[in-house]
C-alpha cells in the first residue's frame, strides 16, 4: 500500500485487523478546518513531492519500528483538493498496551508534519489562496 492517496482516506479499513496481541489502538486524523491563524478557510489543496514523500514516510515508519518495537503503524496522507471536514492524514498505532500506542501515534504525526515533503495551499472565502508556511508563526 502506498502512503499517499488522492482518494478519500478509508479510515475503516485502516482500523481493521488488530493482531491477537494488540490491546490498544490509537488513531489520529488530521481534518481540514474552517479557519487557520484566524483566517477563514474554505478548503485546502495538498501537494506532495510524491516519490520522496513515500520514501520519507517509509523512513519514519522504519525509525518508529525501532523505537516502538511492539507497535504496528499505519499511515496515509491525502493529496489534492479537500473541503472542510475531510481527513488529510491518518495514523493508526496498534500495540499490546496503550502507552506505546499513544506515543507512537503522536510521534508519527509530529514527524510527518516536520519532514514529509507535502505542502498546502489554503483557500479563503474571498477566492484568494496562499501556501501555508508553518515556519512563519
Amino acid at each position, binding site marked *: 500500500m502506498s502512503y499517499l492517496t488522492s482518494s478519500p482516506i478509508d479510515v475503516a479499513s485502516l482500523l481493521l485487523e488488530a493482531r491477537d496481541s494488540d490491546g490498544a489502538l490509537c488513531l489520529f486524523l*488530521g481534518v481540514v478546518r474552517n479557519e487557520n491563524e484566524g483566517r477563514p478557510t474554505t478548503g485546502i489543496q*495538498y*501537494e*506532495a*513531492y510524491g*516519490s*520522496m*514523500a513515500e*520514501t*520519507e514516510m517509509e523512513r519514519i515508519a522504519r525509525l518508529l519500528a525501532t523505537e516502538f518495537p511492539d507497535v504496528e503503524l499505519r499511515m496515509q*496522507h491525502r493529496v489534492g483538493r479537500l473541503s472542510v471536514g475531510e481527513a*488529510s*492524514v491518518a495514523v493508526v498505532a496498534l500495540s499490546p498496551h496503550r502507552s506505546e500506542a499513544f506515543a507512537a501515534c503522536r510521534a508519527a*504525526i509530529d514527524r*510527518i*508534519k*516536520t*519532514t*514529509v*515533503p*507535502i*505542502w*498546502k*495551499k489554503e483557500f479563503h472565502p474571498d477566492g484568494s489562496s496562499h*501556501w*501555508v*508556511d*508553518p*515556519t*512563519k508563526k
Partner: protein
Amino acid sequence: MQIRILHFASFRDAVGRDADVRELSEGTRVRDLWASLGHEVPLFARFRAMPPAAVNREYVSGETVLQDGDEVAFLPPVAGG
C-alpha cells in the same frame, strides 16, 4: 553533466515551471546550484539560508556534490498533516 531540478508549491509558483534540466560542471555542490538559482529567481535570492534540499528523494546537505542524472529539489517549508 546534466541534472533535473523539480520545483514545488510556492517555489514552482516563483519559477513558473515544475521542472528544469540543467548542465552543470563536475564538482558542483548543492549549495552552488542554489546560489546560481538565486541569480534567476528573485524569491530565492531573498533566502538568507539555503532551504532543505533533496537529491534523488533523500534530504542532503549543501555540501553534497551533484552527479550526472541527479534529481534535485529545494523544498519550501513543508506543511503536511
